[in-house]
């Protein structure tokens, strides 16, 4: 298992929106998917998953319904609202721009070293 790194400030919301965008999903599944997809690199700060979900729900970016899981238990499934979709697009775009810019700067400094 490789070294874990903390999430940069504010990126948790973006990741949550992205995961929920793939289809209605409950909190436990979100936690697992985050871990799997990021190959255990990203560690969700202990105890911050649900507060973040509830915050997004209160902001109207997520909506939630109670549905049955495959195992027949009732769970709270989150889905993306239209407002959440728009938010995801703008946030994702700005994340792209930011990482590209940071990448450019990092490569430039390597080039200067040669």
């Amino acid at each position, binding site marked *: 298992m490789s070294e874990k790194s903390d999430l940069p400030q504010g990126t948790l919301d973006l990741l949550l929106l992205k995961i929920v965008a793939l289809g209605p999903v*409950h*909190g*436990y599944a979100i*936690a697992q998917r985050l871990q799997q997809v990021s190959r255990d690199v990203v560690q969700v700060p*202990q*105890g*911050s*998953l*649900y*507060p*973040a979900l*509830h*915050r997004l729900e*209160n902001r109207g970016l997520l909506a939630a319904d*109670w549905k049955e899981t495959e195992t027949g*238990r*009732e*769970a*709270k499934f989150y889905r993306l609202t239209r407002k959440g979709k728009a938010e995801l697009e703008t946030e994702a775009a700005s994340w792209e721009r930011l990482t590209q810019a940071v990448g450019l700067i990092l490569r430039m400094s390597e080039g200067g070293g040669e």
Partner: protein
Amino acid sequence: MNWWQRLWRRGEIEEQLDKELRFHIEQHAADLMERGVNPAEARRLARLSIGGPEQVKEKCRDARGTRWVEDLAQDLRYALRMLRNNPGFTVVALVTIALGIGTTTVMFTVLNGVLLRPLPYPDANQLVALHGHSRDWNDKIFGRQKLAYLDFRDCQRESRTLEIAGIVFNGGTVSEPGEPEYVNNLDEISANLFSVLGVPLAYGRAFLPEEDRMDGAPAMILGHSFWQHHFGGSLQALGTSVVLDQKRYTVVGIAPAGFRLYGAEPDVYTPVGQDPAGYLKLRQAHPTNVIGRLRPGATLAQAQNEEGLVGRRLAEEYADTNKGRSLEIEPLRPEEVDDVRSTLWLLLGAVSLVLLIACANVASLLLARAVSRERELAMRAALGASRGRLVRQCLTESAVLGLAGGALGILCANLGVHPFVAFWPGSLPRAEEVQLDWRVLVFALGVSLLTGILFGLAPAMRAPARRLEEALRAGARTVAGSSRRLHSVFVGSEIAVAVVLLIAAGMLGRTLLRVSSLDPGLNVANLLVARMALSPAIMADPTRIPAAWQDVLERARQVPGVQAAAAVDIVPMREGNNQLGYWVSADMPPKEKLPFALASSASLNYLQVMGIPLLEGRFFNDEDRLGAQPVIVIDTVLAKDAFGGKDPIGRHLWIPDMPCPQIKQDANGKTVETSVDCTEPYTIVGVVGHVRYWGMAGDDQAEVRAQLYYPFAQVPKLFLRRWSELMSIAVRTNVAPLSVLEPLKAAVRGAAGDQVLYEVRTMQQLAGESLALHQFLLLLFGIFAGLALLLACVGIYGVLAYLTTQRVPEIGLRMALGATPRQVVGMVLRQSLGMILPGVAAGFVAAIAAGRVLAHLVNAVRPTEPLTFALMVCVLMAAALAASFVPARRASRVDPMTALRQE
């Protein structure tokens, strides 16, 4: 869901939150068990990985955005429960706060009514006052100058920005209907006064413009109280006639109840334009009060500009009377009475100090409780409450306490404010405006919240977040030591404030003692003074006036019990005075730079009646009449001010504003008498003792103390009528002075039976009234200081009792090791002294500053009185040590075995 819905469906949301988290943990545990972890361990790991279910729930609640409302409701419930469960604490705290806020609110209510409330006219902010200002006028002594009637008429006619009304104060004898009565508040008004003020009459109509002229039909408006007294409030009064100074007026209107002008309710109103009095035709006399209302769209600045121009034009056009005069405009404000203003602020300051002590007391009570609740708070922190959350909870508790105490305080204030106003010495200006209004409520609520937060802050700041385990592990007992310093601060500040109030009360007491033993300068016993109105028929014919006064004094002297009677225009220690500038040579500085003296015109035997000692020369005699050399008699202060040590007899004073007529021919060749500056000197013929004219307490600091007397017999004929309107008589009796009043009234009635005495006082009453403010202040400060002392002692007692209880095991150990009870008492008293002494020191310094304020605001108080300081500090130390003694003795009786077993 908006936040409102979220708030309402809180129960459901909580349930769902719980269900959601339970699902997560169970799923996770199930997954772990599938991987072979044993069930108990799996559940533990699942709970751990989610971050502790309770803490996560707290954070989710925070994310909801409605958190503060829920918390507030929860805190409120919690606070109320705490208060209910500690009835003893709650009652003591509530009574203390209610007392503090109640007294403060009473004082603020009075201050608000007297100083802050706007004038009771509609759109009062559109009203302005017009003043005149002469270059040689001494504002400091005479205050703002009014306008000449003719100048007022010019302004009224020319102003485009203002609608202007004028009022001339007068007095007169109403001889019909009923018994003849002198009315002191006769307001001569321009026809538009009521419309300018925006106040409709209660009944009837206002004056018509054509009535506000010399040839107008005599019309009168009655003041509401006058109407009630004389007409029993009957509407039949409208259209009937009233005879005022021999002129028959028809009543056309009744003013509304409670309507006041310049702080007083007028008795009757007449149109000023009908008054033929000479001084209304002179531009050098300034009797007219002028009020304006801004016309729609006009601003104060425009009005100031316009009237400034009018003033300059008048100064050019009437150079001989208006040169150097300008017109000034400012917003109309309630009349201000300086000593009432400073007294009110002083008292508000004093009650705020009492409130501070009350706060400190409640704070130390709360602190003691907070210390014993430390474990509980630590537990709550462990369960996920943040530090801010705990602080907020503590503050909510104290705010609830503050608000509840404040509400009680407002109730008390509501009951107490009217008795307090009635208790005020003399008459409180605008007393009718003193009532609880929104300003008072805002003030009281603000103060309650502020005090709640103030006394809750210290305990709240102790809410723990650090040293959690330590607090949880330790018993409440061992934590106590850390709060000792805070307790000392509370006790110290209570002591400091009590010192300030005690010393202030002591200074007032000493001042009162000193001032009442002073020599008033006259014999106050068996002396009756009253204003006197001669018959209107005599007043109309000045040649009859001197004989009429002779007659009055002669008849008064024949009343059984009366030894002697004199006439004078101003009476010591009573309202009303006449201040004139003087100089010792004809070569005078500008008028506004002259030194001033109080000038009384008196009849021949004035000295003898008043009991004022003649020190040198002579008083007036029959030779001092019109045409003879003008003479004056001065007092010792004027003698010293003007001539130093030199003998003043035979020397001269120049007094430009003394009544000095000049006979001139006017444009039509008619001889007219006018008043001019007096250029002839006055010869000093005697020196008399100084009289405490400004009252027993006020005289030493008075702006104008020098006094001079001139014979009434030398007042020129032109002024006899005006002077006679102001005259009083003084009667020396050999029986109780008030017992001669009825026979005296009957004796001076005169042939027509329409001469009346009014404003009757004994000199003893006047001297007493001049000390009333000091007595009042002393009483209040005495009460405040007593309260402060009591609260401080209760505070010391409570804190020491608490601290010694905390120290019982330690004391037991000491005693087991051989300490005697006496040593234990000494130890506790030393601890108490350690809190008291810094408080006394701080209070001492503050009292020096407070003493200066007091000396500045209250007449005759000396800023530092070492004896008072020492005495009051001793009183306080004694009381504080006595309060400490009870817990100290209790500590000395600790049974070492029991105490040690507790540990």
